[in-house]
């Protein structure tokens, strides 16, 4: 995923300079990442709450419906480009060599998120890749300050909760803040994708959707 930061006017430039000066001072007191708190990975039940907010809980839906509902909620435009290999043959090869399946670009000034995926991906992988990138948008992963990200040490799987980061600004769907570690953000985006696929297939047959209408 890539984030395109907005171009600002002179005031913005001044504030940016100030922020650059302020950052080392802020980091004097904190050798580590500015962690907002801790939380555990997203559960299927928590994802069902997100679906309820989008108005999709208990309904069968396609990834396109999820994308549209998420775009409405976040008040941004989400464009998905499935690029046929014949248009740009190098895309598949470059992505495959880099070990990635898709690309998410986000432009703050244009309020636009673009997801690029090669058309040669197998249908299930294509669906999950798009849902994975949408998961990053839902989690607010693109709204964290790149300077706040922690060093990529291997997260201990025994840990129940992991450190999170504050957001710059903007709206997210998730209740919790994004994780400080990139590997955890990727893991959670994978989880969101698989929850979304099953929830969309099952509709009100999903046991988690059922729980929302049978609270007693």
């Amino acid at each position, binding site marked *: 995923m890539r984030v395109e930061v907005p171009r600002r006017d002179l005031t913005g430039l001044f504030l940016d300079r100030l922020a650059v000066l302020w950052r080392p001072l802020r980091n004097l007191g904190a050798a580590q990442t500015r962690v907002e708190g801790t939380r555990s990975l997203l559960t*299927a*039940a928590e994802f*069902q*709450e997100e679906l*309820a*907010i989008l*108005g999709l*809980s*208990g*309904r069968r839906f*396609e*990834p*396109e419906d999820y994308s549209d509902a998420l775009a409405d909620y976040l008040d941004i435009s989400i464009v*998905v480009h*499935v690029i046929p290999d014949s248009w740009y043959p190098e895309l*598949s*090869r470059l*992505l*495959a*060599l880099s*070990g990635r*399946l898709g690309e998410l670009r986000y432009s703050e000034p244009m309020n636009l998120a673009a997801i690029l*995926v*090669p*058309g*040669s*991906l*197998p*249908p*299930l*992988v*294509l*669906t*999950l890749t*798009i849902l994975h990138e949408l998961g990053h948008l839902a989690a607010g992963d693109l709204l964290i300050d790149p300077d706040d990200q922690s060093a990529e040490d291997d997260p201990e799987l025994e840990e129940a909760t992991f450190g999170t980061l504050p957001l710059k600004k903007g709206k997210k769907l998730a209740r919790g803040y994004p994780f400080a570690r990139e590997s955890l953000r990727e893991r959670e985006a994978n989880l969101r994708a*698989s*929850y979304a*696929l*099953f929830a969309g*297939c*099952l509709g*009100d*047959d*999903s*046991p*988690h959707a*059922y*729980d*929302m*209408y*049978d*609270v*007693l």
Partner: protein
Amino acid sequence: MAFIVFLCFLLPSRGTKFSIFAACNLFFVALMFGAVGLIDLAGGRAEIMVAIMTELPVVLIVAWVCLALAGGLPSRFGTLPAEPVARRPWLRTLLVSAPLVLGVSVGLATVVGLVWPSPAMRVYAPAPPQFFVLKALMMAPEGLYSGIASVVFVMAGWTPGLKRRFYYKNLAFSVGMACIALIAVESTIFAGSRVWFSGDGGRALLKTLNTLEACLAIVCILAFIAGLSLRYTPTVAATLLYRLQSGWLHAQEEFESHEWQAVSSGAADRLAHASRAVVEACHLRGLSTSHTERALATIRLVAVMRDPSSETQNITPDAARKLYELQQEILCDDVLASKISWAAGWRSRPHEPQTVKSAPLHDALKAALELVDNDVESEGERTPPLWYYIVAVSAADAKMIDPAQVSKQLRDGPEHRAAVEAYDSAKRSLRRIEDRD
């Protein structure tokens, strides 16, 4: 009576956490009324304490219901809020505040009652104005939260497309909570009547209100019993869903993405020519798109599995077999297998979505394993489809598999000869096109 009904009819058949909690509260109320019958209550303060103790279980039930609707109960009692609450954060905050507000109101009422004692347990006795204050302090929040809960249940039941059972269930709980709200209003009016109305007229009014309260209490209990009795079992259990997600979905995504990466990065260099020839041969034999897709998926799998480069190391016969077995598990459950589907492309609704059975991968895995893995057991004397023969001939020609093994396996029958003929024609045709270019 209510406790006995709960105990005899409901708990053995439907022991939810809430029904157990409600039964305990009803038992407590029954004990309190029993104690009042046996012990002579002398003094206003004792009466106040008993009156508050008998009201406490209702307050606790209202608090539990509000927390359950807001998803605020501890995780072992269930964590999800009701669907209408999840969409309205303000409603969630309001419902979560119920235990605190109700607790404070009961505390304040206790203080008022102890400072200014009144004949709380003597139903028709005239009471001082402080008794009205005491009652109103308890009943106003109780009525408010019960009313809100009742509306939320209606909203949950009213969701379009919801199963009828959920509709009736939520409607029943809504009626139950509405009855509690009405009882709270009625109790406040009753307390006011004891303060401001006396004589025969006042007594008649109190009797009428008392009868109304009894009726509302009966309806409330029956509504809750009806709501709790209505059961619905989801088609897919949460544990099965978790197993599918961490097992099959994870395995298939990993397998297909590794295969795609290997093919796209050009690891399986023998594949390009072989796949073109397979497609052409299928076309020459007039095979359907779905059969051609299966043939293509199989030749790709064979090429990747037989490629010695490091990029293809994750696509092994063992990984293919494991994925095939996981897919077979899903296919054993017809309902599940038909429900789990994915689109064949982005915004491609006119096309049929793929399922585990309809996607080419399932048949391709089996075919590729039969061709690559000599130890795999073939299903008796079953005649494979023509696309399988074409793939086998192509794979043998490209030296992906041993040609002698293929001849032995396919027994040189008419399908084999037809496949060889189609494949040779396809190769000639492709060569002509290449020469022309």
